[in-house]
């Protein structure tokens, strides 16, 4: 998580995995399958889709933002709920305010809202085969 604390970050540049091209080759082999499997999504596809939704991925900028929000929010909630309870002389008010703020925070931060996915990773273009040969 060291990179998350680095404030001055350049746009992230990564190389795509080398085996992307190979995947294409594998997908062509699916033509041998019976026709009805093509009409609806396969079980594996559904599984990966469900996993994606359950995982709720957010980008690096979003992760940084979430960590900051959680820290500030929880500190403020602790202090505020103490003050509220002390002023009203009631522990019920303290823990009511505290638990309410925790619920609000979870709603704000746990689902992968669009605001946390505004800075998707910029992939570099694939190096073409000819360039590779040239570098050799």
């Amino acid at each position, binding site marked *: 998580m060291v990179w998350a604390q680095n404030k001055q970050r350049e746009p992230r540049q990564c190389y795509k995995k080398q085996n992307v091209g190979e995947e294409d080759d594998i997908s062509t082999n699916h033509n041998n399958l019976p026709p009805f499997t093509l009409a609806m999504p396969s079980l594996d596809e559904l599984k990966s889709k469900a996993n994606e939704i359950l995982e709720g991925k957010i980008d690096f900028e979003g992760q940084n933002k*979430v960590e900051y929000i959680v820290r500030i929010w929880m500190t403020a909630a602790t202090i505020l709920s*103490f003050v509220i*309870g*002390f002023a009203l*002389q009631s522990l019920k008010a303290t823990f009511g305010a*505290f638990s309410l703020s925790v619920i609000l925070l979870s709603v704000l931060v*746990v689902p992968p809202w669009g605001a946390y996915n505004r800075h998707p990773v910029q992939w570099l273009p694939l190096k073409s085969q000819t360039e590779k040969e040239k570098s050799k």
Partner: protein
Amino acid sequence: MHSIYSRINNISGILSTCLMVLLLGISLSSFVFTADPKGSLEISSIQVSPGKARRYHNKNQDFAFVQFNVSADLTPLFNWNTKQLFLYVGAEYTDNKGVRNEVVIWDKIVRRKEDADINIQGRNKYAFRELSSTFRKAPPAHYTLKYNVMPYVGILTYGEAARTIEPVAFPESRDLS
């Protein structure tokens, strides 16, 4: 922080720290409240009678019967961190051998602030006996009303709300029946 689970994990981690800090703050806040209410305690009657304890059938011993009036406004003891008060009336005397005795003869639990202004005519709830089985040589005793403040979070605190002005002597033992 990239997935839902790691975000929940992060929140719950900080939540436990914040909760501990909050509880610590609440327990420390009890020291801000330094109410020390005073009331009055009078012994209206005291009698000593010989009898047999249920536990020791073949031993004659003296039983003291104490009636008292207690009045104290203990509402200042209730703050946001007070769960309940434990009140108790005790007899204090130092016997001839120099042993300090403190015998609790009555108690009461106050759960609500509305019930904390007490004005009670009571008598001893618990059998009041002397260790030497007789009160004949026991010196006059002071009676006190003490309280124990039980907080929701934090430490128990004790205090004395009332005390008899003069020590009350034990009368001669006589058969009441």
